[in-house]
């Protein structure tokens, strides 16, 4: 380390940094700090010599990686590892698990649970929980089926009614939680029972409403774009979009004189993304092509991820997950953010419920029941969203749903009973929560939480 050629240079910068910053009279222009502040072009920010600066290139990556793992910033690393292990195990047990057909089907089957899990991610970011997503998904599917099939309402109207019902349910939950002050746990537990009852009421005496198979929801689920172009085009678009955004960001940062990602870094990331994207596209094209359901799921993930990370609304959601009182004092409308998050959660539950109904081509009394609720929450947590609030991403819905879906699919292929499926999914969820808790403890010790 001592023969690092960078060391003396840093020492020099440190000395520069030591120099007392004079406070020119114009450093705080009238009109507040938001007025443009003149910056000297050669103004090198003081660099703390104790700061561990990441080296460039692969070595830098490995070092950074090791540091992150040891300080508990695991992110989606455990879930990616888990996915690799699960696929390796089931793939070795039965070669049909890793077949294009099975993986393509898997990519469709995870969408329902995954959509619900996206909503759960939002609620978990606040450090709260929504126990009603299962029932809400069932209710909204029933609303769509009854309107569309039984009453012959225009299918688009039925679809919008079903989704808006979810939004209104979320508003109701949010109102009791944010305005009345009932713990979210209790409100949504009551909702879990109540909305399930309403669903039974809506379905009526027959108890099951079969979808026609030609309605918009069924088509959303079952459409597959067979052209080779579709999947590869999507992969190409994703890679180009990522690369373009990264390069643009770097250029702006460079121009503004703030730290930017080196080009090697961007190239490496783009390469990893390209490998994953084209591999997925290739696999899908080996079977039937790109499922519309998967496309819709990915669009929801990307758009909501953008909302969370790049808009002030998302910033406020994270702030609430970190320090509610701090967020309130910063002028954030805490009740509104809470209510809107519950609205997003229930809306996503409704959308997920529609995909699940399309999957079984009906809305029935068992819709939204079983272990759907557990699976949706487990997916969000397994995917790396913290139960403690303030940490997470919509991508964890995809990763978590993939893990759970893979376990179910692998066990079905092996012909194992529900008993084993439940036990293994439970164990994976426990493992995810343990990792989350341990990571949080390590983060605290390493000063990252």
């Amino acid at each position, binding site marked *: 380390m001592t023969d690092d050629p960078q060391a003396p240079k840093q020492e020099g910068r440190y000395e520069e940094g030591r120099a007392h910053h004079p406070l020119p009279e114009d450093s705080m222009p009238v009109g507040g700090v938001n007025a443009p502040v003149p910056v000297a072009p050669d103004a090198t920010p003081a660099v703390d010599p104790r700061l561990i600066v990441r080296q460039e290139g692969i070595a830098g990556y490995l070092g950074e990686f090791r540091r992150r793992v040891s300080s508990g910033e695991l992110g989606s690393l455990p879930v990616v590892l888990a996915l690799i292990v699960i696929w390796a195990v089931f793939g070795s047990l039965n070669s049909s698990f890793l077949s294009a057909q099975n993986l393509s089907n898997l990519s469709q089957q995870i969408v329902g649970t995954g959509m619900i899990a996206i909503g759960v991610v939002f609620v978990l970011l606040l450090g709260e929980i929504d126990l009603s997503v299962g029932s809400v998904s069932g209710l909204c599917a029933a609303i769509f089926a009854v309107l569309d099939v039984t009453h012959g309402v225009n299918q688009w109207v039925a679809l919008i009614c079903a989704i808006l019902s979810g939004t209104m349910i979320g508003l109701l939950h949010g109102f009791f939680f944010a305005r009345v002050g009932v713990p979210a746990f209790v409100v949504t537990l009551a909702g879990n029972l109540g909305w399930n009852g309403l669903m039974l009421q809506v379905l009526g005496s027959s108890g099951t409403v079969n979808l026609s198979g030609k309605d918009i929801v069924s088509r959303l689920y079952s459409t597959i774009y067979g052209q080779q172009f579709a999947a590869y085009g999507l992969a190409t678009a994703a890679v180009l979009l990522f690369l373009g955004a990264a390069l643009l*960001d770097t250029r702006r940062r460079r121009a*503004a004189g703030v730290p930017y990602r080196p080009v090697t870094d961007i190239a490496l990331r783009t390469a990893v993304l390209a490998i994953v994207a084209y591999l997925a596209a290739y696999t899908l094209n080996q079977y039937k092509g790109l499922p519309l359901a998967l496309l819709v799921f990915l669009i929801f993930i990307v758009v909501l991820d953008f909302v969370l990370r790049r*808009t*002030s609304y998302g910033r406020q959601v994270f702030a609430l997950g970190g320090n509610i009182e701090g967020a309130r*004092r910063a002028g954030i409308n805490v009740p509104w953010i809470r209510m809107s998050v519950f609205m997003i959660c229930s809306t996503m539950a409704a959308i997920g419920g529609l995909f699940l109904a399309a999957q079984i081509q009906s809305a029935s009394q068992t819709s939204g029941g079983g272990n759907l609720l557990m699976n949706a929450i487990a997916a969000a947590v397994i995917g790396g969203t913290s139960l403690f609030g303030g940490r997470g991403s919509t991508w964890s819905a995809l990763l978590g749903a993939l893990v759970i879906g893979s376990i179910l699919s692998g066990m079905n292929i092996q012909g194992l009973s529900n008993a084993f499926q439940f036990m293994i999914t439970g164990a994976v969820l426990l493992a995810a929560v343990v990792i989350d808790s341990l990571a949080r403890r390590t983060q605290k010790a390493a000063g*990252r939480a």
Partner: protein
Amino acid sequence: MATATPAHPVLALRGVSKRFGAVQALTDIELEVHTGEVVALVGDNGAGKSTLVKTIAGVNQPDAGVIEWEGHEVSIHRPQDAQHLGVATVYQDLALCDNLDVVGNLFLGRELKRFGVLDEVEMEKRSRTLLDTLSIRIPSVRIPIASLSGGQRQVVAIARSLIGSPKVVILDEPTAALGVEQTAQVLDLVERLRGQGLGVILISHNMADVMAVADRVAVLRLGRNNGVFERRSTTQEEIISAITGATDNAVTRRQARGTEGTQ
């Protein structure tokens, strides 16, 4: 600095009272802050200084009394109301979000946007400039607040109060966790704010700091006003005796307590 004071103080409290359960935290508090003036608020632990600050900042609502802003009575129900008036506050407990990075905290609630999307680059640039003027070394403005030292967090909280264009800045023990150099910078900053015509309320237990920058010193004792002193015409001992509620100073108090103990 001591220019002709405008007719109305920018901020005035008239008979403000606040009660927490069995504790009457504030009783009939009067306080005036003029533009271009630094008012130090001093008092023992539990005297009610932070409670008063939170009342002005809209965190707590007073039970009685009025708050006047530039001569007009205003109602401050929420922190947003105070922010819109132009009150910026550094709380004693800082009120930062541990999971957000430095930039995220600095601009929380006032994010800069470009085409409706957060303008991270501009926010980061301003953050660095702002933190540089406070002479603080922070490893990176992109690390979560959780990984900063207590003093670094305090500087971030102070820097946050300067974002936007406040007319009154309230600093609740801003230098409690700061080193010599950073304390000097904060005191410099207070003088610069005064020079720009802002009103500053500075809370501190450090008499040297208070005497260095304050124009007037308001003393709170057990939730009541216990005198407002012109700094120029007052000695430190007089202020300390007002704080402790005795005409004597800390040394004689100790002696008095000693004799009580032997009795």
